[in-house]
């Protein structure tokens, strides 16, 4: 069946674009290959945490410095007004899907999996931030046998910022020890109150905030944490863990469900093996030979990280599914990769300001848009800006696609 849009990739940017297009009333088909990079995303919406030029320079008001970014940065292409709209819209959606995000106009300092600070623009309700725990005494939960939360490091680093900490040894329900297993165990825990009541004795009386690893449930975490707060009588917050990230999975799942209930079709495949472009029609086929037809395509397949782009052993970056032209600083030789991976982070599909790519041997496409990690000229790891760029570009791509589809209708 033909749809208005095909979205390649199940990344955050693709989900955002799909939801926005559904809101405009279009039919969408998402084609993705396995789990997306939200599985790697620690909690919160990171818009711009550090300067793109300096790994250590903390940014306080990300929206205020967008205009100082390089012209080619995706934020510059989207533009400050659209970024604001996109973020406001996302805050709304996040409430609707019970993943409420709060933004205060400036960066907060989120507590990382090792207790270090990472500037974050939008925080979720139970996310541990320096602001929420500063000056307090924190009880840090260490689940027995659980290895993906380096709680001892959190204690050391928080100690340096003046937060007193005490590690509390706890047995998880069902003695679960893996992120997803822990989340499931908490989701299915029937008597949460009595579980936390039993915990109470082992928590030092002077503690006034509890820090849990961010595994307190996938679907029922609100209930579980509310119960913990009620029983323990103090704020109960979550600190990110090693991937796969449970908060990331919550968001992916909630957005996906929201879409599915809005009757979008979700497909998975192992890869896109080819495509054909016509003026007002695109056909893509997957590697099982299935064909999908649409008026336009949005490519949100996660760049090199998630397999949307390939790097060959000569250091050349390729986009093979559609034959889009890519940007790379130079062949990715060690001289340009240097001692960091920055050159690899900033490669991607080159686009115009409307996020439209160019096909090898022809001009800019009218009916294709590129988002998120597939875009070049930004460095998620260095900037800590992943969710911000994904939301902004996913939204902008949908808006541009809307404009294009309307022009078709008019014609």
């Amino acid at each position, binding site marked *: 069946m033909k749809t208005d849009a095909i979205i390649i990739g199940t990344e955050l940017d693709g989900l955002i674009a799909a939801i926005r297009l559904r809101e405009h009333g279009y039919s969408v088909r998402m084609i993705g290959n396995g789990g997306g*990079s939200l599985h*790697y*995303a*620690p909690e919160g919406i*990171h818009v711009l945490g*550090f300067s793109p030029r300096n*790994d*250590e320079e903390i940014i306080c008001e990300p929206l205020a410095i967008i205009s100082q970014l390089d012209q080619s940065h995706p934020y510059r292409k989207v533009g400050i007004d659209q970024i604001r709209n996109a973020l406001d819209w996302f805050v709304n959606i996040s409430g609707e899907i019970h993943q409420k995000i709060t933004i205060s106009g400036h960066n907060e300092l989120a507590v*990382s*999996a*090792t*207790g*270090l*600070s*990472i500037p974050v623009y939008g925080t979720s309700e139970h996310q541990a931030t320096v602001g929420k725990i500063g000056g307090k005494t924190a009880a840090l939960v260490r689940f027995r*046998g659980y*290895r*993906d939360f*380096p*709680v*001892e*490091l959190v*204690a*050391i*680093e928080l100690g340096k910022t003046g937060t007193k900490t005490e590690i509390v040894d706890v047995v998880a329900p069902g003695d679960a*020890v*893996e992120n997803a297993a822990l989340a499931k165990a908490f989701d299915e825990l029937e008597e949460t109150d009595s579980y936390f009541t039993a915990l109470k004795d082992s928590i030092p009386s002077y503690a006034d905030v509890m820090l849990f690893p961010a595994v307190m449930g996938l679907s029922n975490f609100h209930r579980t944490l509310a119960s913990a707060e009620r029983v323990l009588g103090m704020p109960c917050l979550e600190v*990110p863990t*090693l*991937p796969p*990230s449970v908060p990331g999975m919550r968001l992916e799942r909630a957005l996906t469900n929201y879409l599915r209930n809005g009757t979008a079709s979700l497909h998975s495949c192992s890869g896109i093996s080819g495509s054909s472009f016509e003026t007002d029609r695109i056909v893509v086929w997957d590697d099982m030979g299935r064909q999908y037809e649409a008026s336009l395509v949005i490519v949100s397949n996660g760049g*090199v*990280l*998630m*397999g949307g782009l*390939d*790097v*060959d*052993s*000569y*250091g050349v970056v390729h986009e093979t599914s559609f034959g889009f032209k890519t940007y790379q600083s130079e062949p*990715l*030789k*060690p*001289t340009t*990769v*240097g*001692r*960091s*991976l920055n050159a*690899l*982070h900033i490669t991607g599909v080159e686009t115009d300001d409307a996020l439209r790519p160019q096909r090898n041997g022809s001009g800019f496409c009218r009916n294709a848009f590129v988002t998120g990690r597939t875009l070049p000229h930004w460095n*998620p*790891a*260095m900037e*800590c800006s*992943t969710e911000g760029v994904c939301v902004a570009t996913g939204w902008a791509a949908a808006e541009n696609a809307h404009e294009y589809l309307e022009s078709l209708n008019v014609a």
Partner: protein
Amino acid sequence: MPQVDHNPRAIVIGGGATGCAVARDLALRGFGVTLVEFGDLGSGTSSRFHGMLQSGARYAVSDTDYAAECMRERLIVADLAAGVVEQTGGLFVSLPDDPPEFSDRFYDGCLSANIPVEELDPDLVMAREPAISRHVLRAFSVPDATVQSWRLVNLLADDVRRRGGEILTRHQVIGMKVRNGRMCGVRVTSAAGEVTLEADVVLNAAGPWSARVAAMVGRTVDLELSKGSIIALSHRMVSHAVNRCRPPTSHDIIVPTGTVGLFGATSEVVGDPDTTNVRGQEIQELLNNAEVLLPEVRNYRVYRAWAGVRPLFKPKGWPSEKPVPRRHSVINHGDDGLVGFFTVCGGSLTTHRSMAEDLGNQVCLSLGFDAKCISAITPLTRGKNGHGWRPADNYRGIEEDRCYQSLVCECEAVTQSEVIDLIENHGIKHIHDLRRRLRIGFGPCQGTFCGSRVAALIARYHPDFASNDDLGRFWVERLKGIVHTAWGQQARQALLSDTVYRETLGVRLKPELATSADYR
């Protein structure tokens, strides 16, 4: 000839395979020994090598005596330290590019060097080794093996400690004490400050740095520093160490070791023993040559690349067109007026023991101390010595105990109790030092998930642990090798790993971390 009436004291400079072997040799002869190592044990060339316990066949034509020495030593090491040696066996294959007449000379050379060699049916070899070229013209088997160098140096060092010797790691020799033309000690600096250690003899086993050490007292050592780069392929593409059958040059061997396959090596004369950076051009050179032996190599995943510096001994006036000899050399600096100071260099990891024996003999002779070398006949480990090391051993242990959740490094199957044992009982408190001893971070993910787990365990025992810096250094060091091979699936891995370190763990790559010399 002078006579000593007490058991002499020796200081050994360098904690690579050579230095550890020298310390053990002397400790077995009754010396009081102190070994001084700048970094961690085996953090120099001994850990940057190709992994082979050579049969010597590689040098059978060019240097038959040295080849014979390798063969003798290979048998002794495999016997003394069976637990760190894997008897993979080696193959020499002649491809259309290789000089056809070399094969016969190779065969004869092996026979003269007492290396058991057998010509095999090329078709059989290609069937057994499906990853190699389909154009094998002739093939020979030889008893090459592989050795786990870190385990080896630590076995040697443990034996030294057991015999009363002292091992000082993260101590650097910065000067010497000379009295009346006699060496009588060294000045050493460490985090604890500077001290002078006294001794009857000082033995320079500082590998590629030995010329620098000798220069502290104005002596020269004719070293040629030859940098070699190696790439680690994702799994054991071959089951034997496979060599090209041609005069030994560069990039002609693939070695299965641990769970990976190592292809190398390049060679390039350098001036600085600290030159361990790999150049992009070298990688392409390696891949181009590897394609001849392993046609699919550009489709393989390559975990990382690294370089080591070979400390070759090049006698004065050696003709430049002739290959530098591989055999080691012992220099008694007493011959040019500094009694009690010796340097040993050249050789290889395979011959670490015979190098130490040779040095020990000359030291005893010069001191008039009558003690025979017993390192070849004294078992290196207590307990069972029978079977060789197998890379699947870790995995077997985990399956038997079903202790899956206690894995710290999942890729290399390293358990929490192994880590804790080293932290508690051996005073290890850096991720790097655990990495070297346990192969942590050696697998596909190159330390993405184990780094912070290990750091947390260290912090459990050392609450003052500078975790942030240690993690940062660990990741920068892993990155150093990955950036060179970040193509295909490893590019994806590299980005995931960087994402985890920077976005989840919050580690920032500070300039001082990013530019610091190798953390050793």
